């Protein structure tokens, strides 16, 4: 009964709230059922007033019932919804901002759980302050009536100071244990300046850390989880899978530091799994399949680049194509009728149908061939699981380009191949498998085993080859010889200037199907590969410019 009543309140105030927040794209909030105490339900999550999952806000009826003695239900609901909407419209706004704030908080507090709590508190302060500043809201009244722990009291006192509204916390209460000092520090933070949120959360965390550490200790000794946040918890649930995807992509691009990305992803791995987030093949889905943060990093980083590939003429695609006309007869399929030569009529003797044959001949049909990527993971290359490897990033960009064009990719990851330092992945379109092999690092010497490459190239008339190495290959002559025999398009990227690279370059300079790119600075690889591959695959693009 009460549930319906609350729902009707929401329906009544929702148009006003939407207008107040400038019409956010958020569905009508719902009410969560009030548990029946006689049946032993309840307690769990009663302290949480608002839940948000994939943009669906849900008001906890039990919480509103608890609060109704202190303030009218309508005002409680309005305050909770004001707070919830502001998370979508101002702070944190998106998953990337959330991750960034979390990462900054973790730098100060050093602990995963503390950092999560800290970023949630910070986000709440910003959201509430934004509401109070910009909109007429019941949030101050809600704070006045909420049950408060030590940290909530300190934050309420902060609100008193920065909003100039009495929330019922006497200053004398703050003089103990240096809480007034903490509030004085917190009050100096420019919460509403989005451009300074990074430094602001560090300062926020520095000031609030002793209180949070103390509370964590107390909870640890009590063996409990502590008080619930009445304005909602577990903020990762706010985001849809697409938003999480985009957030990770942006975060990878912004940090460009593998260790930072890895830290954050590993810290959020449970939540990411809970949100059903994963990649094809199941990484991150289900129990016991841990998220490989390294692979995810290269995957997300590579998604920020796009390499256009010029399609090449392919022979004998195996599909049927219209070849010549023949008269239509009753019973022949209508779908093959050529309406132009039949004058729009279905009549024996006049109507003509297309006779189809398997496509042959060059120039008409274009497609993207499969690609064999050879990547050097010897000791002279960067370990992609330790720091950002531009070789892996370059190969990842190329992989994406081929997969996006419907082609398959094979990987030959080698160091000292004849001695077993190699991993071979046959042609596949499974991105996760490809990345897993790309990210493997063997170290040690560098030698190719051509016996491994031949089976991968045999029987494939149209095949592109892509090799990334520093060219310090012991049997470089054998590689040169191999490239001399094949007619496939080869893109060779080598890192740095060295005599081996010069020798390779000189040896294949007359081969028109081989393009060599020198990278003097490793950092240039992704950019150079992108640009030069475009030159190579799409010469018309250059002519235009």
């Amino acid at each position, binding site marked *: 009964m009460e549930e319906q009543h609350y729902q009707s309140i929401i329906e009544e105030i929702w148009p006003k709230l939407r207008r107040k927040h400038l019409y956010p794209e958020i569905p009508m909030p719902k009410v969560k059922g009030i548990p029946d105490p006689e049946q032993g339900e309840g307690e769990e999550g009663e302290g949480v007033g608002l839940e948000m999952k994939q943009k669906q806000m849900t008001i906890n009826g039990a919480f509103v019932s608890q609060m109704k003695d202190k303030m009218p239900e309508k005002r409680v609901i309005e305050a909770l919804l004001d707070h919830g909407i502001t998370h979508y419209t101002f702070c944190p706004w998106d998953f990337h901002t959330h991750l960034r704030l979390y990462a900054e908080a973790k730098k100060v507090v050093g602990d995963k759980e503390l950092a999560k709590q800290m970023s949630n508190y910070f986000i709440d302060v910003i959201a509430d302050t934004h509401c109070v500043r910009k909109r*007429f809201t019941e949030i101050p009244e809600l704070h006045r009536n909420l049950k408060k722990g030590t940290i909530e009291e300190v934050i309420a006192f902060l609100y008193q100071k*920065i909003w100039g509204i009495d929330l019922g916390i006497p200053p004398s209460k703050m003089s103990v244990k240096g809480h007034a000092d903490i509030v004085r520090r917190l009050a100096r933070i420019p919460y509403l300046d989005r451009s300074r949120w990074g430094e602001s959360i*560090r*300062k926020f965390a520095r000031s609030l850390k002793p209180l949070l550490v103390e509370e964590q200790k107390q909870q640890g000794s009590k063996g409990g989880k502590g008080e619930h946040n009445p304005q909602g918890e577990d903020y990762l649930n706010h985001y849809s899978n697409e938003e999480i995807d985009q957030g990770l992509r942006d975060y990878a691009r912004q940090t460009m530091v593998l260790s930072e990305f890895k830290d954050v992803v590993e810290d959020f791995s449970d939540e990411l799994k809970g949100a059903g987030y994963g990649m094809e093949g199941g990484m991150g889905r289900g129990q016991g399949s841990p998220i490989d943060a390294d692979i995810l990093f290269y995957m997300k980083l590579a998604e920020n680049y796009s390499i256009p590939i010029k399609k090449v003429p392919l022979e004998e695609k195996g599909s049927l194509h219209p070849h010549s006309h023949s008269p239509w007869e009753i019973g022949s399929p209508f779908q093959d009728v050529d309406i132009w030569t039949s004058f729009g009529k279905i009549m024996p003797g006049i109507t003509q149908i297309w006779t189809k044959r398997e496509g042959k001949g060059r120039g008409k049909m274009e497609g993207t061939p499969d690609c064999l990527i050879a990547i050097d993971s010897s000791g002279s290359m960067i370990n992609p699981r330790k720091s950002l490897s531009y070789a892996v990033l370059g190969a990842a960009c190329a992989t994406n380009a081929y997969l996006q064009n419907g082609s398959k990719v094979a990987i030959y990851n080698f160091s000292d191949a004849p001695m077993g330092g190699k991993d071979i992945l046959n042609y596949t379109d499974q991105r996760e498998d490809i990345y897993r092999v790309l990210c493997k690092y063997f170290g040690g010497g560098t030698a190719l085993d051509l016996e491994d490459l031949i089976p991968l190239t045999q029987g494939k008339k149209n095949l592109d080859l892509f090799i990334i190495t520093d060219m310090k290959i012991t049997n470089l002559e054998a590689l040169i010889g191999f490239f001399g025999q094949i007619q496939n398009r080869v893109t060779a990227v080598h890192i740095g200037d060295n005599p081996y690279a010069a020798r390779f370059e000189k040896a294949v300079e007359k081969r028109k199907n081989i393009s060599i790119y020198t990278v003097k600075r490793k950092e240039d690889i992704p950019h150079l590969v992108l640009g030069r591959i475009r030159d190579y695959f799409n010469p018309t693009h250059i002519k235009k410019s």
Partner: protein
Amino acid sequence: MMKSPTPPKKSSILPPDKESWITKNPFEEFKTFAAPTPDLPLDQIVQSTEAVMDRIRRGYEKLLEEEAKELVWMVQYNTIIKAYEVAEKYVREVDYTAEDIEDFCFALENTQRIPYLIPGPAGVYISALCNYAMEEEIVLKLSELKTEINLIGFRLSKGKRLMIEGDTGDFTGIGLEGGELVIEGNSKNWTGAGMRGGKILIKKNIGLHTGEWMMGGEIYVGGRVRGLGNIVEGKVYERDKLVYPGKVRYPNLYY
């Protein structure tokens, strides 16, 4: 030819009931809802904090202009004294709190705000800020600071207590004049050199030349003392054990 003052009204080709289509502002509804944007005390606090920070920053820049020409600054007795006098001059003009000093320390690492961090002059300037602060007890939470600031606590006067959360660089607490300096982390070489009185508490380890030409006061080290300097007068304790005056009289002795 003169223009007519009131141009003839164009006759509408739209039916009268649809004339409103062209006159109605599609955002009209937003106009009616002009949400109040009250000035919060936060705005004022942030604004005044920024203003104070600007003045502190300008003082530091002037100190660099006068004392660290071509960005070179040699740590010598004369240069320290002279830099401190210049710092005092600018610091006296600013009304600030201990939190402003802490903010300044972090701003020093933000190259977008302050062009150069030269650890010597920066330390002298921060010391002057601490010595002229209104508060008797100052706590600086600097554990996230990447740079260890030198010369912090220089000439800390009697009645003042300066507590640093984090590590400090060389020449910490030199010339201490009766104040109490507490370092929650480690401290480097020449700590307490030339101090005349007061107390230095280092919670962790300390470097070489500790208490060089120290004239009085006490140094307490919670961890290890890497080496003592030539001490004239005063006491040095290592993990509650008196190491000077005591058996160890040789400078820079490894324990």
